[in-house]
């Protein structure tokens, strides 16, 4: 919402300084986003006449001017092609600051000729884009006058953000009222502002225009008055100046009056050229598919929920949002109908959203206009038309009734303190309410004014008191504190996530945060997305990720493209899956992507080494361990399929990936090498190892206090025995190890593979697997017989897996 200080002072009798007004507006909730004070920034620039112009002795494109800016001739070097003797323009003396580049003008020597300032272009003064030459003013412009005074730029322009609840402050009047309540002056009587004795309805001649409303929901009230014999010329200078100052181009006095009143009073109006209308005007619901060309030149197709103003033949107005092109006024217009209607805010909001059409009118009707101001609004408009366009007014037609119901709220004056934290004396509260137009009776029933439909209960009333009295006066009050040290608040899930995150970082992984949405193509190898946006910001950010990996793979690709040698990224976030009853199932998941060098080439180890599937497995197991999963009990199984029958579109390398499970169904993690096809889709040339870790699948740690079991190291030393088995090449090592471990559950405390060998001495289709077994004696050392028996049991168990002990 833009307006000028001068405009504000039309409504507000005040001596407050600009700074005071700005500060007060923000303090009472009308946030000043900017103040443009061209008068101040251009104060040092003056109207000046070029007395003489002669070629510069050293430069073809420059001229040496003598300029009179009111203090006698000054020598100025100028490069503008239009600089010539007799020209009246704008001159900046040394010390002036050029707005466009913040340069301070100085006396300078330009190609050996002294120059004492600058003749300016519109662009240099930020008054326009023209930079073809210096500003040319009329020959009678008073030399020596500060340019802002001459050009009428001395009126600072405010830009104030009006929150959606403040219907009243969509007009300068409402802002003035708020400032008056805040003690910045007094609100002037409305009639005087428009140079009227009163604002009674204009008693015109003859009947009012033929208007009615058939849509009491969308347009409960449609008031109108005709004026015949008008001349639609240029606006009076004061009106044109206000509109220009806030960036609205004056068009014609009839259009400008509606634009002016929209900003001045927050009261949108519409003016129809009567000659274009066939029959009377009716507010009705559009018929589905009906179209209208609006004033912005675009054609809108309407539906049956939208309120329009139409004549017998066509729609002329998208009610309360934008007028139609056909019936708009022009320079030739002589007879008009002025519409002053009340459109229902909900209807306006819905229609505006559907049509994606915003306008000053919509912004105001959507917030709600003052339903008690239709007569006055129409009267002001008619009076301004009569004053500035001449003509004869008709009678007034009042169709329908604006919703005037006012509700009183029982208010307790202590509420300012018990809710707002500020004790305000009763008489002060009463004064605040009354200055804002609220009615207050003896027992504190408070009735909001008709222009404050946002007020809906005592809490809103407290806000009015606090914001006018000063929210800065509210004192800080400590929240009551539970005695003692603060209690822990983190949930097990939160603690788990924190541990895993910090462990991953400690293991050398960099945490990324990537978009929650990916493209459909990126989601496809990972089972595709369930949640696809109806209105994505782009195709790349369309599907809620079904996996943590697509976002990380894209990031990895970008890193490799910018010459990273090694990429070790992780992210902890959610995967978005279908849940129950149409809701989502958002699963806390860790994603890890490893690509590039696991180890760079070096003087110790020689060539660099790329990441492989075992690196992924190591990260998975390490982090599962940190997360408290029983890593010793995990089973390694094959990768989960995305369900495609032919295996197409799978994410993982079929032979170099797997899942870590607790039992056959509970998948805690997937790990391995990415399928080369997926890699290619992400434009990744190097092998990629990856992990997905499903935090929500990890069984919760049982809480059993802080006490640990007693420390009881074995009394006797353990014994280590090595076994080398020949096994079929496709036997999973894990199966062999499990069999070996199971051979004597009491004595065998550990078994691990320490060598796998194929090649010379091992026949084709077989491999040699060497296992180190740790045996722990109990009370007594193992006897030779016992060791023999354990050995025999181990070999027998291995043989069941198709293994034979190597000699």
């Amino acid at each position, binding site marked *: 919402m833009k307006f000028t200080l001068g405009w504000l002072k039309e409504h507000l009798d005040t001596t407050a300084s600009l700074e005071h007004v700005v500060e007060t507006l923000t303090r009472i909730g009308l946030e000043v986003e900017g103040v443009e004070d061209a008068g101040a920034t251009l104060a040092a620039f003056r109207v000046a006449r070029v007395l003489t112009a002669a070629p510069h002795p050293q430069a073809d494109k420059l001229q040496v001017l003598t300029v009179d800016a009111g203090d006698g001739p000054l020598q100025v070097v100028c490069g503008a092609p239009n600089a010539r003797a007799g020209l009246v323009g704008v001159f900046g003396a040394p010390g002036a600051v050029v707005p466009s580049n913040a340069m301070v003008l100085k006396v300078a020597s330009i190609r050996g000729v002294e120059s004492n300032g600058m003749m300016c272009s519109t662009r240099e003064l930020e008054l326009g884009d023209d930079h073809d030459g210096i500003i040319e003013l009329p020959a009678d412009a008073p030399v020596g006058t500060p340019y802002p005074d001459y050009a009428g730029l001395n009126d600072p322009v405010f830009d104030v953000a009006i929150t959606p609840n403040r219907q009243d402050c969509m007009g300068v009047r409402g802002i003035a009222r708020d400032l008056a309540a805040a003690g910045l002056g007094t609100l002037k009587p409305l009639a005087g502002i428009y140079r009227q004795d009163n604002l009674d309805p204009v008693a015109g001649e003859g009947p009012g225009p033929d208007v009615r409303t058939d849509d009491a929901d969308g347009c409960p009230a449609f008031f109108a008055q005709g004026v015949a014999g008008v001349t639609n010329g240029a606006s009076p200078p004061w009106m044109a100046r206000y509109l220009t100052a806030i960036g609205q181009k004056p068009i014609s006095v009839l259009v400008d009056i509606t634009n002016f009143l929209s900003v001045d009073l927050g009261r949108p109006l519409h003016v129809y050229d009567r000659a274009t209308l066939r029959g009377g005007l009716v507010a009705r619901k559009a018929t589905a598919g009906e179209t209208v060309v609006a004033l912005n030149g675009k054609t809108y197709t309407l539906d049956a929920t939208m309120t329009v103003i139409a004549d017998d033949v066509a729609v002329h107005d998208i009610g309360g949002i934008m007028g139609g092109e056909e019936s708009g006024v022009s320079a030739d217009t002589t007879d008009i109908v002025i519409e002053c209607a009340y459109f229902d805010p909900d209807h306006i909001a819905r229609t505006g959203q559907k049509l994606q059409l915003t306008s000053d009118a919509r912004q105001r009707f959507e917030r709600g206009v003052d339903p008690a101001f239709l007569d006055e609004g129409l009267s002001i408009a008619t009076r301004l038309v009569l004053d500035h366009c001449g003509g004869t007014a008709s009678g007034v037609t009042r169709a329908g009734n604006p919703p005037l119901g006012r509700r009183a709220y029982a208010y307790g004056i202590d509420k300012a303190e018990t809710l707002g934290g*500020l004790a305000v004396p009763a008489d002060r509260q009463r004064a605040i309410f009354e200055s804002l137009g609220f009615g207050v009776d003896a027992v504190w029933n408070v009735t909001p004014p008709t222009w404050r439909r946002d007020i809906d209960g005592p809490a809103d009333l407290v806000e009015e008191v606090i914001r006018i009295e000063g929210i800065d006066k509210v004192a800080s009050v400590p929240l009551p*504190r539970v005695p003692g040290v603060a209690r822990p608040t983190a949930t097990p899930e939160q603690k788990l996530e924190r541990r895993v995150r910090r462990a991953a970082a400690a293991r050398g992984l960099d945490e990324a945060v990537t978009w929650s949405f990916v493209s459909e193509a990126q989601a496809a190898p990972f089972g595709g997305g369930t949640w696809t946006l109806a209105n994505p910001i782009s195709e790349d950010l369309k599907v809620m990720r079904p996996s943590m990996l697509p976002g990380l793979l894209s990031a990895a690709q970008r890193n490799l493209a910018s010459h990273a040698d090694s990429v070790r990224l992780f992210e902890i976030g959610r995967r978005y899956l279908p849940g129950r009853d149409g809701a989502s199932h958002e699963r806390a998941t860790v994603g890890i992507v490893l690509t590039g060098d696991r180890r760079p080439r070096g003087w110790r180890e020689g060539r660099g080494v790329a990441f492989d599937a075992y690196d992924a497995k190591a990260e998975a197991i390490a982090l599962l361990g940190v997360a408290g999963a029983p890593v010793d009990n995990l089973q390694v199984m094959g990768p989960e399929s995305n369900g495609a029958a032919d295996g197409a579109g799978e994410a993982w390398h079929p032979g170099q990936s797997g899942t870590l499970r607790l039992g056959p169904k509970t998948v805690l993690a997937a790990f391995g090498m990415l399928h080369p096809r997926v890699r290619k889709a992400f434009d990744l040339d190097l092998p990629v190892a990856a992990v997905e870790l499903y935090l929500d699948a990890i069984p919760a740690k049982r809480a059993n206090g802080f006490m640990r079991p007693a420390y009881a190291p074995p009394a006797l030393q353990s014994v280590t025995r090595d076994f080398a088995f020949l096994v079929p090449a496709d036997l999973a090592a894990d199966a062999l190890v499990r069999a070996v471990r199971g051979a004597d559950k009491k004595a065998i405390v550990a078994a691990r593979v320490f060598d796998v060998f194929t090649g010379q001495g091992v026949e084709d289709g077989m491999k040699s697997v060497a296992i180190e077994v740790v045996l722990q004696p109990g009370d007594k050392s193992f006897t030779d017989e016992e060791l023999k028996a354990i050995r025999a049991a181990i070999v027998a168990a291995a043989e069941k897996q198709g293994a034979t002990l190597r000699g």
Partner: protein
Amino acid sequence: MDDPKLVALSEIEQCDTPARLEEIRVQTLGKSGSITALTKTLGSMTDEERRAQGPIIHAIKQTISDAIGTRKVALEDAALDARLATETLDMTLPADVPAGGTIHPVSQVMDELAEIFADLGFAVATGPEIEDDWHNFTALNIPESHPARAMHDTFYFPAPDGAARKMLLRTHTSPVQIRTMLNQKPPIRIIAPGRTYRSDSDATHTPMFHQVEGLVIDKGITLGHLKWTLETFLKAFFERDDIVLRLRPSYFPFTEPSAEVDVGFTMEKGKRVIGGSDGWMEVLGSGMVHPKVIAACGLDPEEWQGFAFGCGIDRLAMLKYGMDDLRPFFDGDIRWLKHYGFSGLDVPTLSGGVGA
């Protein structure tokens, strides 16, 4: 110079190899060594002679033995020194130091928030990011036609036929307020950090960003408590005592009264630094929870009242740690992550300070 002792000591002194030393030991202390021969003479002596000679001969034997021992250690030391001299490595060569990883600033700041607010008795609550419009809007006093909905630039999901609920990406963390009030009896003190989404993308907006919501529901809570809480939080977060807040009356449909909160900054080396009051920056939206919101959650607004606030986490991170562009937050660029990220060991604690 026939004194066997002096001969032996001289030889020991001059000996320069372990082998030669062993020879000398055999020649002197060995079975038929010269000193051994001397001790053997004791057997043929009279008691008196033996009493006189015994200690002398034993002393000689001891002296020789000690000398051999000392020499042996000296020779071994010399041999070790010689060997070590050949084992010199270039200690300037690089060692393999595994690259450290990093914590993303957003996660770090979330942990900082949790730590600070835990001290004030706030737990951390969560809710779904794919929300329905009731939790995201309606329950928060934002009916369908409300202009505030248009301000939110909401991402929607297509509604399947017959679906009761319209699903969307939450535009703020405020629906967690609703879920908390529905599921938990007051008094309530929570913060709810998380991802939020708006269909907006320019230099200062990304379609995904992070917010933290705060909610207190209790008896007798006023705007004064809100002010204190925000001051206390911001002082703790920025670890500065010169934090100045400015509350501005504003509007949010789900709070009444509502206030936007500006924090004062000073200019240092061309950057805005939080603290002081040379200028104001908007950091928070807040207010007293609207009675309609409390009622929508099944609580009696006559009995319970409280405050809520919301704040951009990415923005908090930028203000504290000096990033001046939001967009790289979500690029996963390792160079940026290494530059602005945190060590895994930078765990925010009250005793160590929450900042790192």
